[in-house]
Every structure is written in C-alpha cells, then in structure tokens.
C-alpha cells in the first residue's frame, strides 16, 4: 500500500499552498503541496490522495490537462478546481470535464473547508456505492433518464411548454451533512449557466453555493422546498425542484451537461 495522504494542493503561488495546508491541517487533514502540474503528477505516482485541489492557470500543465491525466491515473480520486480567473466558462468546464467541484479564488477558510468536506464525503459515498454493488440499496440516487446534470451538482429537465426544471442532484445533497436552510433567487431573475443560483446551508453551518445548470429567466420558485429544505433530500428529482426557468439557450447549454440516460448504460 502506497503512502497515503488526505489532500494534494497544486498551485504555483506558495502563499496559497501554505495557507491551504495550514487550514486543512487545523482540521486534522494531511496535506502535500506541488507547485506545478507535472510535479503533482509525480506526487500522484508516489502517493495516493483522497482529494486534489488544483489551480487551473499553471504554466507547464494547465488544470484541465492535469484533470484528464489524474482521471486516468487515479479514476476515483475527486479533483476540485480553483482559479483566480473565475469565469463561468471555467466553472462549467471544470464540472463538465469531471471535476468534483469548483471554487473561485479568493476563498475564505470556511468556503474552502465546505468544498473539501463535500468532496471527501462524495468520494466516500461513491466508494460505498461501488462496494455494495448495483443490486444493493444505493448510497445515493442517480438522476433519472432524460435529465441532464452539471457535474454532480445540479440537474435540468426540459419540459414540454418550452420551460425547464432545475434541481439539486442527490449526490450533492448527500454530501451536505443535512440541509438546514435553502436560499433561492427571486422570481424573474436571470440565471446564468455555471453561476451560483442557490445557497444550501448544512446543519454544521457550512454554506454551499449551487452552480446553475442552464441559463434563463426564473418563472417559478419552489416555495415548498424553500419552506422545508429537508424535504429536498426525500425527493430531489421530482418534488424537490428549485426553479422553473425559460432557458435562453438550452441547446447550447446542454452541450456542457452530462445526459443522465447515458449514465445508466
């Protein structure tokens, strides 16, 4: 068994790797740091990690290239992307390319820890799911056919009237240790793909921003879910929807999403 650590943080700014190391160490997590993508790949060969936190803008090997290579070398290891060039495109592409999550710089210690905890929990859930086998009761419910998902965060389902429903994936909800509160955008707001459109607060007080799967104008808000946030976890794909939107460019947005039908093949 290879030498095992909790987190590998990759950033060409030493001040950031040091800050992340100290914050995580305080929480009892062991952290390694690498100052480039290629150095990080060397680390991956030497040790196994439960989680990688990776900067996108790096000189030798950028974050997306690292993400691809890491998925090949350690398929189950979640990678959280981060960048100071925090455009919506970068956020969406990270999730589309298979990152566990995306966090924009600069972040506070609490924001970082919320993301790290969720990613670690997601890994545990996925390991449990594969260990128990497909016939056993699932650790989380995958999204139904004809749904599309943005990473493992949110889903969208096209409706016949030209509108679309938006909600949170079960895996996302399960990684939050008990939904305590839900903050939603008001009616008629314009949502953009990849932009935060809701905030979920966990029982422990962590705040998790939800990236919106499609852009569009919000025409209905699920007040019932807002009033009883815990109900989300009971039926995340039907009763637990968040918004009904009139999408601005559904076909364009769908290109960045994963079809849930294909998940089941």
């Amino acid at each position, binding site marked *: 068994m290879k030498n095992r650590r909790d987190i590998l943080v990759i950033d060409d700014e030493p001040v950031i790797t040091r800050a992340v190391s100290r914050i995580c160490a305080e929480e009892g997590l062991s952290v390694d740091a690498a100052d480039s993508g290629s150095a990080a790949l060397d680390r991956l060969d030497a040790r196994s990690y439960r989680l990688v936190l990776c900067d996108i803008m790096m000189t030798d090997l950028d974050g997306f290239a690292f993400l691809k290579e890491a998925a090949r070398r350690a398929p189950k290891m979640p990678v959280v992307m981060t960048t100071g060039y925090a*455009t919506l495109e970068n956020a969406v592409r990270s999730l589309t390319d298979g990152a566990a999550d995306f966090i924009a*710089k600069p972040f506070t210690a609490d924001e970082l820890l919320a993301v790290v905890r969720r990613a670690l929990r997601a890994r545990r859930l996925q390991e449990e799911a594969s260990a128990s086998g497909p016939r056993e009761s699932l650790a989380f419910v995958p999204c139904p056919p004809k749904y599309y998902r943005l990473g493992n965060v949110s889903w969208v389902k096209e409706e016949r009237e030209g509108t679309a429903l938006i909600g949170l994936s079960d895996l996302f909800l399960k990684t939050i240790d008990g939904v305590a509160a839900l903050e939603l955008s008001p009616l008629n*707001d314009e949502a953009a793909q990849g932009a935060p459109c809701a905030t979920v607060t966990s029982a422990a007080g962590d705040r998790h921003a939800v990236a919106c799967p499609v852009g569009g104008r919000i025409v209905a808000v699920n007040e019932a879910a807002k009033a009883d946030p815990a109900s989300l976890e009971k039926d995340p794909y039907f009763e637990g929807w968040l918004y009904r939107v009139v999408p601005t460019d559904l076909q364009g947005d769908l290109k960045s999403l994963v079809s849930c039908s294909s998940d089941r093949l």
Partner: protein
Amino acid sequence: MFQQRTLRKRLGFKLTLAVCATALVTITVFAVSNIRSHSRSLLAEVERHANQLSEAVRSGTEYDMLGNQRERIHESIKRMGNQPTIERIRVMNKSGAVIYSSDAGEIGKMVDKKAESCYMCHSAGRPIERLEMKERTRVFRLQPGGPRTLGIINPIYNAPSCWTAACHAHPRSQVVLGVLDVTLPLAEADKDIRAAQVEVVVFALSAILALSLIVAFLVRRWVDVPVAELVEATQRVAGGDLRYTIAETRDDELGMLARSFNNMTGKLSEARLQLFQSDKLASLGRLAAGVAHEINNPLTGVLTYGSFLLKRTKDQPELQEDLKVIVRETIRSREIVKSLLDFARQSVPKKTEADINEIVSRAASVVESQLALNHVAVSRNLDPNIPKAAVDANQLQQVFINLFVNASDAIGPKGGTITVSSAALSLSPVGITQIKKAQCPKRHSLIDGEVRIDGKPSVRLKARSDGNEGFIYLNPMYAMGGHHHGIPVDDRKVIALSCPECSASLIQPNRECPRCGAPAYAFESPPKGLVEGCSRKGCDWQRWEEVDATGAREFVELRVHDDGCGIAKDLLPKIFEPFYSTKGQKGTGLGLSVIWGIVDNHNGTIHVESEPGAGTTFILRFPVRA
C-alpha cells in the same frame, strides 16, 4: 511615386500617342492620295492641251501638205515650235526619217524604232495603226536629270485627198503616212504639283500637330488629372489617412469612381473606428481578466490567512474585531474584481427591493464633485412617496452615473444644471409591454434580432398576399402598431401569415378581428400565453390576454434632464447602438447600450427626448413588480 513614373508609362501619354498615331496614318494616307489625284488631273490637263495642240498643228499644216508646200510647212512648224510653251514639233515619215522639225538640226535624221516617240507602236514588232489618246502620250526626260517633258504623237493617216493630190506622193495602199510628234515641257505643271504637295504636307503636319495638342489637353483634363487625384487618394488612404476625400465635381465615370471611392473610405473609416472601439473593449476585457487573475492570487493569501486567523482566535475578542474588518474588506475587494470580470459579460441583475431615490442620490453624490469642477450642478426633484422596486442597486447606480456623466459632457465647459426627478405612475400594459418571446405552434422562434423596430427585435412572420411572398415584421411593443411590411400589401386583401421556418399557419380558424372583421393571427409568447392580432394591414388590433389580465401596472419613472447641446433628430435612433459614440476616441461608445441592456434586464424602458440647443431628457421606467 506618381511623379517618378516615367512619361512612357503614363496613361494620358499612351492615350495621346495612340490618337496621334491614328491621326498620322489617316492624314498621311489622305495626303498621299490627294497629291496623287492632283498630279493626275494636272497631267491629264496638260495631255488634253497637248492633244489639242497636236490636232491644231496637223490641221494647220494639212493644206500645205496636200499642196506639197514643203517650205511653208517648215516655216509653220518652226514658228509654232518656237513658242515658249512648246518644246519641239517634228514630223517623221513612215521610214522614221525626220522630215520637218522645229529644231532644224534634226531634219533628215533617222529615229530609232526604240526611241520614245516610236516605241508605243513599234514595240510589238508589227506597227499598230490605231492608238488611244492615252497610249499616244508619254512623259520622259530629254536629257537624263533634265526637266520632265510630255510627248504626244499623232499619226497622220492616209486620206482620199492624199492619194488624189497633185503631187501623187502617197499611194492609196498606205495606211499611216507619218507621225506628228509634239513635245511640251512639264516644268510648269511640275511646279504646280510641287506647290500642291508642299501645301498638303503642311496641312497634314499642322492638322496632326493641332489634333495632338487638343487630344493631349483633353486627355490631361479628363483622364490624367482625375486619375492622378485617385492615385494620390488611394496612396493617402493606404497610408492611413481615411478622412482624405476627392472633390466630387464631375459627372462622368471617373466622377462616379471618385464618389464611390469617397463612399468606400467613409465606410472604411467607420468600420475602423468600430474595430478600434471593439478592440479597445477587448483589450479592456483582457486587462480585466489579467487583473482579476493577478489580484485574486494575492487576495486569496489575505483572505485565507485572515479567515483562518479569525477561526483560530475565537477566544480573543479584541483581535476578532480587527480580523473581521480584514476579511470583510477582502471580500469587498473580491466583489470589485468580480464586477471587473462581469463587465465584459452582461451580468445578471441581483434584484432586491430598493428605494430608487436612494440609488439616484448615491449615484449623484459619487459624481457630484467631479461635475462641480465643470460647473455642472445636480438638482434633485425626487418624490419621496415612490414605491420600492425590485432592482439591482449596483447596476442601477451604474446607469445613473453614466447618465450624469453623459449629461455633463453634453453641457460642456460653460456649465449648467442636471435635473433628476422621480415619480410613481401607473400605466396600462398597452404600448409598454414588449413581446420578448414568440413561437409558432411547432415552437420555432419568431423573434428576429436583425430587423429592429425602435431598437427592439421584431416578430417576423411569413406573409403571402396576391401571389407575393415575403415577411412582415411586427412591432414587439404590445398593441403599438407600426409594423413593417416587407412586401407590398393591399389594405383590403387577405394576408396569409405563417411561420418563416416551418410554414405552419398562424391564422386562427373562426377568429376575427373585433375591430374590422379580418382574420386574426396568433402566436405563443411563453410563458405569458397567446398574443393575437389582426392580419389586415392598417389595423393595429392586438390582444394579449395574460398581460391585459394584470391590469394597470405600477412604475417608477425617472427623468434625467440636462440643459446641454441636445441631440440631432437623425442621431436619436442610433444612440443606444453599441459602439455609437459622439465623443470620438474619448468614449467607448458602450455607455448607452450598456444602460439599455441593464434597463431591459429590469423589464424597464428607456426613452430619450431632445431638442438641439435646448437639452436632452432621458426617461426611464422601472416596473415596481417585475
């Protein structure tokens, strides 16, 4: 460069040369043929004269010959031959001996058959007895190099009076008794011919010269100068001076070329300006992105350490307060950087219930000190009772700051006043609601962003009437009329309306316009239901049930008035277009289009009223409930 071009290569020179060469050839041909025909007619004249003379000599001597008066004949011929216009007269007998001659020394000499005067008849061996006049004359020189002479021979034929004469000198069987040979000098005629030749050559040369000069002058005036102007202009434009224009004073093709050239450079300079401005914007975007990345990294250091310390020092309240300030201010910096990144993108408004008066006051106080420098005062006339509205306070503040700065620019350095006023009003949905989405029954979008009516994307329908097929563009403002018809349509004719993409009919069966009874069309405007309208041109009836059902809506109206220079009427429709700027290189030309975008994102409207010289008023309306 044009000046260095050799003469040989210039278009005008080539044209002149070509015209002159053509003139040279034609005039030369003309001159040569003229000289020839002139010489011929002169010679013919001399010939005729010689013939008459020869006949006169023959008949003058005939009587003496019949009487065989040889002395008299000698004398007559000698006298006649001495006339200055006659070179020589002689008579030869059949055997070739000269029997009479004006030159006494010649008498008795034999003339060779090959001599000039005999050759004509004796060349074929057997003598020819009858000769045409042309064949009887010949031109020759008595001495080589001497003057030309014309000789005419006149055969003396046998006649009854000859063989019946008393002398019995000639038998009856003889046909030709002898030859009268008259030689005339051609010196006079040759002088005439030479004079005529000189005259024609002089005429030809002067004609060619005159033609060349005229052509050269006209070519220079009509071709060389305008072409040189065009060449100069293209070089100036190529050198980057896009404001250079050619004087448009001509009506010919080169004048048209000059006009289209000016038109082209005008368009080019407009395009370059737009490119320059969009480039400016792109650089700004790149700069923002670069700044965001560069600043976010150090900010991450501050924020992570700050928040980490805040977590670790929960038991030290005096430190907590200070650390909270650090974290709060860093988060504020983060928002500022984020807004830099959002600048390029039309950012999503974060609407909260806000007092627009407060936003206006805040925007005014931000720019007031700057405006005071230009002697511009902001006068507030705000109604304190206006309701709160759901708006993005930051975006709206940006709108008002932009409007104040624009107003101050319009006022200029002489100073003036900006008046901002607010009021609540309630408006019926007719004319203020925009159809932003439109679908056919098969859910093809009917919105056309290319054809805009008052700056808003129109609703495009396919129309067929009387065999004409084309598009009708509906004004997206509900029930406002003012639709554009892309095909000629008769007011009284029925128009078939359908989806431009799938041709699904939009005409409602059994539904008639309540105003005029014409067939009604309908399309879906999700999520607000069906929009119906009258298909007849000239009838503006529309019904949008869901919008009508909401009844009158509450609005907050803001007016920003300045007493500046105003905007010309023809420019008013353009001011909200992106990249349109009257401030030249100073403005990005994005201000008003961004404002328009923000107001539109709030479902609000923005209008402008302006009187050149008197000032401009921007009128903004925001719905209280979106």
